[in-house]
């Protein structure tokens, strides 16, 4: 649509006014390109974060002494992501962010920046996604740190010496989610910058 507009402008022969408009259109297309790239990254990264933590499960056989006179019994112990409510919140937050990023990517591609109401709505939802993702990262990080370190003051034992792979996978998911929230942060800044430029 933009190229059509440009061509008709050139055919019209208004060369002096056309140059300025061309620059404007090119500028707009560049920022929209960044918008689409960032949204695509957000979809991929948040989906990866949700899936990596959602498939996190580790089974380990632990020797437990039930009766002191008998030899220790090997019992399989399972660590699953939904045993910890903070991880459940993290996965749900990332799934919501992924859904929002996918829908807003489609809307951005279909909208082409013509409908102002939709773009404002997308900015507002982007902002809420920033808050949601950061709180999810904070909660998962706090619980993950508790798993690595334990807490001697309230005698909560550390678990990551037993479930090493589980903890590493959770850390990877938190890193991916951090990249997603950075993408959403850049999206909000980019959108505000565009509004500021128009001023």
């Amino acid at each position, binding site marked *: 649509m933009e190229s059509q507009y440009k061509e008709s402008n050139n055919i019209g022969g208004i060369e002096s006014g056309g140059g300025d408009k061309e620059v404007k259109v090119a500028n707009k297309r560049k920022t929209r390109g960044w918008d689409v790239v960032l949204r695509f990254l957000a979809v991929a990264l948040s989906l990866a974060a949700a899936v990596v933590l959602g498939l996190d499960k580790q089974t380990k056989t632990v020797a437990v002494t039930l009766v002191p006179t008998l030899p220790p019994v090997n019992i399989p112990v399972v*660590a*699953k992501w939904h*045993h*910890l*409510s*903070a991880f459940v*919140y993290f996965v749900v937050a990332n799934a919501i962010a992924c859904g929002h990023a996918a829908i807003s990517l489609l809307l951005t591609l279909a909208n082409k920046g013509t409908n*102002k109401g939709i773009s*404002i709505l997308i*900015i*507002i939802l982007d*902002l*809420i996604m*920033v*808050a*949601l993702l*950061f*709180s*999810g*990262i*904070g*909660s*998962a*990080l*706090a*619980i993950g*740190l*508790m*798993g690595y*370190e334990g*807490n001697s*003051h*309230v*005698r*909560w*034992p550390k*678990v990551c010496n037993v479930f090493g792979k589980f903890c590493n996978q959770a850390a990877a998911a938190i890193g991916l989610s951090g990249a997603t*929230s950075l993408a959403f*942060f850049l999206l*909000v*800044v980019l*959108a*505000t*910058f565009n*509004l*500021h430029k*128009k*001023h």
Partner: protein
Amino acid sequence: MASTYTPTSESEKAVLAPEVRAPSRSFALADVILRFLLFASGLVAVVVMITSKQTELVPIPMPPFVRIPRSANFNHSPAFIYFVAALSVAGIYGLITTLISFFSLLKVARGSKLVFHFVIFDVLLLGIVAAATGSAGAVAYLGLKGNSHVQWRKICHVYGDFCKHIGSSVAVSLFGSIVLVLLILLSVYALSKRIPK
């Protein structure tokens, strides 16, 4: 400051005044009030968190079964330390930007550049405050409910006052992050409506 304006800009202002000045003033006023609320919520959350110390007699599970005094303090958990640091930053930022916003309210015209810079820092701070709320909330929930899968016992039936302090502090910081969202929305709205703030 207003006296330094040239006569031409004075007359321009007089022409623009009736339609532009009223929404500009109300936006700037709402901005100042919200920023003050951010400062207040940061201050309250930090004060409530650092006054949460509680000492209780706790039975120890080892052979001399005596009850010894053990205290619960916020600096026993890294999540709460991060919470205090983040909310202090939010409070100080709130205080500074309240003053900046207030002084630019006295000065009538204000460029959109200031609003743009405010938005970036506001979004950054929203991330920090939301992460603090999430981490403190997660640890507080663990203290309230415990987790049987990893043998983390609940502690809030012992340290009741401590948990009440933590819970109210998290609630206040949630309010603070909602205030931040409203601030950013206000700025974005002002930018999109081209209201000169």
